[in-house]
């Protein structure tokens, strides 16, 4: 092992910023990160062992204790639950002979739940050793169990198990473009960098991750202190372009499709942005769940290097730029730009204090622009077609189109592109959703809208969304949805600040209490008070939106919550009889007198 680690560190130039990459390789080989590996890495990377320990404990895909040779994770996103996730994972567990969360005694296989893997249009989804599994049914599970028990290498598994369909149902402005390689770069230099930035500004393009910051401004701020668009002047100071492909918002999967089928344009958008702000290095922070895209993207980058679309003196324009792909390791918080930067630096993804913002002090303290995958795709096409081409669509405050990931109760789940300003009803009609109870727009951190609100519009000024669009029909229980989302946020809180660390766990408990029927008068008030506290005092966007599932449904369906409450003034917050289970087991008793009837 010593030699393996040494070589691994060497391949990564002994850079501690590559810690996640190194740990991914160690985890893949030893199914955990052995203690000896931590000690050795601390020594040769010259970082405290506690930094490595922290990274391992922070990211869901790293483990201090061995996982199975086949580590199987099943997505527990709400859309997975809607296709019977609980029953199917129990079936899986039974067939494999391993409890959920555990490793089988022979060490061959382990099974657990995981947060949304970005496959909501092909649920039930999962991962085996990091590679995406889709459309899991009992028969496919049987096939996997057989492969595992035969200890068949993954390469010999039927490729059908790993098929990830794009499901592009409704392309519009952006998804209909198939520019040739280099077209956006050449257009940018032909027009001029400053002029291209003006076009991006004219296009009104705002960040597609959901926050909606004006892209051209971000790029301007990123190079404010020097002459923007002046490559020579900018070369003095290192800057970075980062593509945020950590789409972790449950229900979002558009970036998966954009990177699978539009990667060239995305890379080109990054290259154009780099030329404008004067960056020579770019990164794609690809969520760990999209490991299946890694090799394909590397191959595309290699082709682009060969074609001089990356590297030195790109297309003879006197400008150098290259892109490195960095994989995440299972942490929703890394979608937050400063947490993403921390992660790129080889640390736990904890959002930084702001100011300073990444545009002035980002990766390694240098000015950094972090933009969404879709933003770069739009930017590349704007560079070719100009700002008006884009700005002609949309609303006054939200220009252009938005790519949606539609899943849940609809006939055709998949990718849809709409001009901003489109009504929810139009979207529902297109995707074949009937008998609709409500829609979760923008994922758990967004808004749950009821069927009275379908005339509302997709737009930053009305319903902002990073792209997640989950449809629920009348057979669904809103409280089940809220329950799932509350657990998600408690699991994904980074734990940095008190209101989010403690608050999301308290919120999970409080929602459980009400949903499980142990709530009483006063519990709704307590719930709302807790939500406001988390929302108003949390450090970053995760905490500030973690209470949205409760707040947006409590506002619309207060009676749903009220109906769950017991009519007495005080109800124990837990199941009294159930908590005596350990005592009964220890006393070897199960008679009537050893049970306690809950007071009704």
């Amino acid at each position, binding site marked *: 092992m010593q030699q393996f680690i040494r070589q691994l560190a060497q391949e990564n130039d002994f850079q501690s910023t590559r810690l996640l990459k190194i740990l991914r390789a160690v985890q893949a080989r030893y199914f955990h990160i052995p203690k000896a590996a931590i000690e050795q890495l601390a020594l040769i990377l010259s970082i405290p062992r506690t930094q490595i320990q922290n990274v391992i404990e*922070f990211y869901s895909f790293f483990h201090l204790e061995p996982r199975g040779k086949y580590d199987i994770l099943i997505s527990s996103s709400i859309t997975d639950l809607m296709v019977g996730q609980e029953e199917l994972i129990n079936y899986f567990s039974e067939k494999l002979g391993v409890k959920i969360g555990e490793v089988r005694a022979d060490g061959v296989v382990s099974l657990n739940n995981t947060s949304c893997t970005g496959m909501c249009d092909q649920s039930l989804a999962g991962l085996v050793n990091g590679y995406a599994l889709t459309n899991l049914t009992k028969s496919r599970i049987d096939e996997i169990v057989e492969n595992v028990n035969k200890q068949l290498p993954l390469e010999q598994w039927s490729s059908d198990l790993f098929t990830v369909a794009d499901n592009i149902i409704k392309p519009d402005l952006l998804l209909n473009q198939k520019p040739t390689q280099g077209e956006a770069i050449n257009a940018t230099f032909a027009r001029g960098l400053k002029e291209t930035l003006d076009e991006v500004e004219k296009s009104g393009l705002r960040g597609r991750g959901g926050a909606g910051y004006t892209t051209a401004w971000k790029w301007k701020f990123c190079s404010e202190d020097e002459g923007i668009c002046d490559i020579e002047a900018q070369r003095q100071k290192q800057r970075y372009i980062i593509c945020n492909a950590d789409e972790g918002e449950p229900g979002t999967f558009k970036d998966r499709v954009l990177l699978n089928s539009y990667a060239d344009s995305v890379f080109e958008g990054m290259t154009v942005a780099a030329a404008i702000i004067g960056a020579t290095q770019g990164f794609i922070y690809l969520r760990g769940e999209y490991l299946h895209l890694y090799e394909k993207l590397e191959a595309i980058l290699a082709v682009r290097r060969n074609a001089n679309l990356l590297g030195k003196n790109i297309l003879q324009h006197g400008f150098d730029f290259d892109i490195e792909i960095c994989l995440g390791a299972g942490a929703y918080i890394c979608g937050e730009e400063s947490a993403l930067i921390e992660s790129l630096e080889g640390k736990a993804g904890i959002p930084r204090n702001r100011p300073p913002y990444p545009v002035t002090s980002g990766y390694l303290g240098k000015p950094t622009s972090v933009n969404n995958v879709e933003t770069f795709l739009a930017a590349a096409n704007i560079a070719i077609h100009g700002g008006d081409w884009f700005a002609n669509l949309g609303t006054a405050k939200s220009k252009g189109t938005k790519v949606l990931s539609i899943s849940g109760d609809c006939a055709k789940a998949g990718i849809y592109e709409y001009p901003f300003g489109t009504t929810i009803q139009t979207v529902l009609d297109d995707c074949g959703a009937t008998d609709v109870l409500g829609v979760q727009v923008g994922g758990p951190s967004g808004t749950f809208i009821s069927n009275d609100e379908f005339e509302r519009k997709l737009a930053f000024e009305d319903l902002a969304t990073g792209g997640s669009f989950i449809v629920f029909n009348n057979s669904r229980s809103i409280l089940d949805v809220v329950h799932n989302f509350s657990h998600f946020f408690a699991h994904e809180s980074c734990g940095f*600040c*008190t209101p989010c660390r*403690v608050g999301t*766990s*308290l919120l999970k408990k409080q929602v459980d209490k009400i949903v499980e029927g142990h709530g009483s008068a006063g519990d709704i008030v307590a719930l709302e008070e807790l939500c406001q506290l988390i929302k108003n005092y949390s450090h970053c966007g995760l905490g500030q939106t973690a209470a949205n599932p409760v707040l947006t449904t409590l506002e619309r369906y207060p009676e749903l919550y009220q109906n769950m409450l017991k009519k007495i003034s005080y109800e124990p917050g837990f199941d009294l009889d159930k908590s005596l289970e350990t005592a009964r087991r220890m006393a070897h008793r199960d008679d009537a007198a050893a049970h306690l009837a809950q007071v009704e």
Partner: protein
Amino acid sequence: MNKSIVIDGKNIPFEDGQTIMQAATAAGVYIPHLCHNPKFTPHGSCKLCTVKVNGRNCSACTFPAAEGQTITNITQELNDDREKITQMLFVEGNHFCPSCEKTGNCNLQAVAYHLGMTDNHFPHFFENREVDASHPDVMIDHNRCIFCTLCVRASQQEDGKNVFSISGRGIEKRLVVNSESGLLKDSDLDVNDCAAHICPTGAILIKRTGYKVPIGQRIYDHSHIDTITLAAEGASHDE
């Protein structure tokens, strides 16, 4: 000094580069806090020092003071919420003040009294946390750790070591020690290190000193934390 911000209606002078907390402390205005200590890089995690800057919530310990800021600090709303955040810290760990040797010298307890906290409000987590008594002179009682990282920063920035770190995610966060065994005795912590004395609660204690000062004569027994803090940290700012 001619630039100023307004805190609760009072003009407070500041210099460029100062945070709201620094400006306030220098002017004798107390903003409740636990994870902040002027000697070290601000952390901004406990969120007790949240103030409203032109209507928006900001952490006073990290947010730069700037011309044109109208800030509210001591309001019913902010103090009520600070009390709840303090209660969150109490229920997350296991804090039994009457049996804790830090009582009377504890910032967490003193802030709680200052904010008028009389109960824990939220349900307890009752987490099983350990005690590390391996070191000859210093012990860690993880039950009382609030993840303020003061020991982490003190060790790095004052002692030139790297004894402590916070590991884990979310509610699983925990204080870890930089030694191969993970035990304090195998780290290079010395009893005279700043990190051994900086803990605002009773999580890191010096052995055999707990009751040298009798209850009734302790730091917060006769004065509120605002007075004590301003005297200590105001002086430290002037250094």
